């Protein structure tokens, strides 16, 4: 939960990210300035190597910018220490990765409440049941991740991201490893979370169908935002991607 009142959930100003040194240096982000609106489902698209994952990681405080500034809500995280960034992640951010989202030794429900356990905050039982209901996880809670299907694992991951009602959820190709039915289901849930609970979600994907669930799409190429699209459909996105030589 957060007390920020601005309409911006996350932002970046003049973000640069270089990997390697000297001749080997690769510029992954090349002067990015972007605002992520609250309660919106934003997708980041672009060809491989365009810097879309790097943008997500630096926005989320998983990785540091070489140069520039990024914020979560009102908090400028680029000037914070590692411990402080960890605290911001813990209190304000949820994550859904493409794979390996869950701790293998913990059951479904333990994985879901893990962020709260780490922070030492009590579980809001009503909210928890609510999420479980929406995601249809009621009968899978006592299972270990190895006993869940890929779609179920990703739904547990989404539940985990939602449970602490973070300022913003970052999802990195959440449906990338799923078949199209499970993928559509998962993206439907995420969209519902945005619409019904005003949850802010930023998702990286290279799949036009997945991106069409978003309110807004940012197109990245060579570390720069080259375009954006509102009210997307899969066909429009595919068309735009073709122009980028994808």
């Amino acid at each position, binding site marked *: 939960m957060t007390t920020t009142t601005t309409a911006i959930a996350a932002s970046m100003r003049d973000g640069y990210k270089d990997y390697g040194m000297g001749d080997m240096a690769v510029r992954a982000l090349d002067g990015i300035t972007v605002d992520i609106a609250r309660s919106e489902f934003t997708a980041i698209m672009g060809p491989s190597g365009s810097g879309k994952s790097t943008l997500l990681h630096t926005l989320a405080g*998983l990785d540091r910018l070489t140069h520039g500034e990024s914020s979560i809500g009102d908090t400028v995280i680029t000037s914070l220490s590692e*411990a402080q960034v960890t605290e911001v992640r*813990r*209190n304000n951010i949820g994550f859904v*990765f493409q794979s390996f989202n*869950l701790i293998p*030794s913990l059951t479904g429900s333990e994985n879901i409440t893990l962020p709260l356990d780490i922070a030492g905050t009590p579980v809001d039982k009503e909210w928890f049941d609510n999420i479980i209901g929406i995601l249809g996880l009621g009968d899978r809670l006592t299972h270990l991740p190895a006993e869940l299907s890929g779609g179920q694992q990703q739904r547990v991951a989404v539940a*985990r991201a939602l449970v602490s009602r973070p300022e913003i959820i970052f999802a990195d190709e959440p449906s990338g490893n799923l078949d199209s039915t499970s993928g559509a289901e998962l993206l439907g849930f995420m969209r519902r979370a945005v619409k019904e609970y005003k949850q802010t979600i930023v998702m990286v994907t290279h799949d036009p169908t997945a991106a069409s669930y978003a309110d807004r799409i940012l197109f990245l190429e060579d570390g720069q935002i080259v375009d954006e699209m509102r009210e997307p459909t899969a066909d429009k996105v595919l068309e735009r991607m073709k122009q980028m030589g994808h």
Partner: protein
Amino acid sequence: MLRLAFKSVRHNPKRLILTAIAVALGVSLVAATHIFTNSLSSGFGALFEDIYDSVDVVVEADPDSDIEFEPTEGAFTDANVEDIGAVEGVSEVGPGIGVENLFVLNAAGDAPLNMGGAPTLIYNWTGVPEIDRSTIVDGRAVEAPGEVLVDIDTFANGDFALGDTVAVAAEEGVSGYELVGTITFGENNELQTANLMYLEESDLRELGGGIEGWQTIEVVTEETADNEAVAEEIGGLLPDGTRALTAEDKAAEQTEAFDEVLQYVDIFAISFAIISLFVGAYIIVNTFRIIVTQRTREFGLLRAIGATGKQIRSVILLEGLIVGLVASAIGIVTGWLLALLIVTIVETFSGELFGSVTLPADALLWGFGVGILVTMISALLPAIHASTISPMEALRESATQSKKSLTLRNIVGGAMTLIGVLLLAIGLFADVERAYVWVGAGAIVLVLGVTLLAAQVLVPIAYGMRGFLTSVFGVDGKLAANNIHREPRRSANTAAALMIGVMLLALVATFTESLKSTFTEQFQGNEAELFVVGTSGAVPQGAIDVIDDTDGVATTARFGFGDVTIDGQTQQLGAIDAEAAEGLLAFPTEPGIADIGAGAFIAPSLQEAGYEVGDTLTVRGDGGTVDLEVTGLFLTEGDAHLFVDWDTADGITSDVFLAQVIIDFEGRADVDDTRAAVEENLAEEFPLVMVQSPGELEQFFNSFIDLLLGVISALLGSALVIAILGVANTQLLSVTERTREIGLLRAVGLRRRSVWRMITVESMVMALFGTILGMILGVSLGSALVLSLEDFGFTGVTIPWLWLLLYTVLAALAGILAAIWPAWRASRLDILKAIATE
């Protein structure tokens, strides 16, 4: 976080099993030692309580007083006994004398009943049950001089019958008594194997060499009396240098004194347990390091969703704590079983010595203490490493660790090796106080340094053997060499664990083999036919006369020791019949021993004090002060600081302890016959004087040294077992880690047998390298130790080749054994599942 730690231990217990066994093994040694000594202590405690149960106050010479009473000089007179009898509350007074330095002989009367075993205790029979503490089983009490009672176990062991003559021998002289009855001590005759006898008072006074007065007075009080008050009142009536205390206090004091001795047993056994745990620490470090690597993505994910590095560290440490707790508990239980087993075995040979085998608090405390401490400390480095895993690691596709350079490890390892060698050299060869501290610290630093360096040295060598392994084992050998090369730290730590155990074994073997060859060399210069020693005391002069009078004996030469004072310091004086001894034994002297004349030969310690040949030594003894010229040097440091001719010694001190006599036969005499004659002549009056040929003596020494080596090897055995477990453990974990790779190899056609062989070769190479490195270190350290002790007579280093060969063969076998479980797992992998594994 606690839950996460618990869950992940439970989720995958297999990877922690061998680690737990390693810890449990070490802990079981610690616990077994404590349980064993506790049981021994309670056994003797019960004995002491039994002894003092029936009396209430004990009056005796005060052990803390400066006044010392000779064994024949009783501290109390009849007047004292009467005074005590008049004290209010006293109902019985039992004045007593006892003789405890003699030996009861076997039925044939030619040797002690208990060779080198428990003592013979002889007391005066009073007829008062509370004082005697024994009750008559068969026959009757001692009524007149010349009669004896023995306890029922001695009666059975000696195969005596009532009416027999029971012989008691001093170093000089044998006395015979008619057996008139048997007794049982207390209720069950729990004498802890000692022989108990009762004589009539006047016989005992004579047997003890003319005992005057009473040595102890035991008092029974009236039931209503306050024992403390009675003891205090009696205390006021006593002569100087004596005391009165309650029987309870006396028993407690005895138990305490016994416990103090047992502490050394504890320290000795626990140092070996700690070596085992030190080796175990290597395994724990390896296990946790591998676990952390395997769980990199898990920790990365935790970091991403907000866990701090500190929380990750706590998870690992908590897991360490859980493993330590469980393993320690298992170790304590197995330790208890081990102690029970040892107690049972010992008691079948020795009779009842022990109290009940309980689980004392110190066993629990030590067991859990060392078990948890070792696990936690070993888990600390991997835990710190885990806490530095960045959240980005969660996003990597596979859990491969970036290769860290070995440079830092090499620099630290090299520096530690050098410092270790330096400390060792200072301790061994420089003249420092408490050299063992330097040696010990040096050895530990050296071992750690070599462990660190091993990653750089060992692994490339193993990799260099790739060609050889390939030619012998084909592609399996090549893959094995690659695998060892892949994780140099892990391979080095695994080999190093084995290295430590083997190093200690090789060190002890080098030391003992050198000791043996030193003895052998000494005996080679020997011309004497027989050596004569006493059983527990000095050889009596009378025995030498008997030997001299035996047909075929040409010469006898005596060796003895006594205390003298030089420059205000007490020094040990060695006395030799120099002229007779010359040529019989090779003495390390300069010039020959016969040149000693009326002067003295000095050992290295006095040479270092500044004395030289030609100087004058002022030696003071109870016979007067004598100026001796230093006429030569004794080249090795032994039992004495200076040596003089026997006649010279007689003029200085009256108190020379005759330790040994060497006998030379006449040239024409038959060796066996003459020896038999000597033994026969001695048996009559001197049954306690032992005769040994040089061969027997050498064998005795050698078997003693072998026993020492055997005991130490057995105690190091657990360290070696742990090290082998470490090899198995590392292999098992890396098989898990390489599941996908092994699946791929199988998919492209590698047969099960080949997988098995690949893992066995890996394990054998690690075991052999650890062993060889350990042997090099052990032999070097052992040689350095022997060289540093040259002053004490070591003639040179003997390298125990046979042992080294044995260790190598055993290491190869151990490597094969250690590979069984991991190889079995690897060869059973389902190919499809293995490839699908992340």
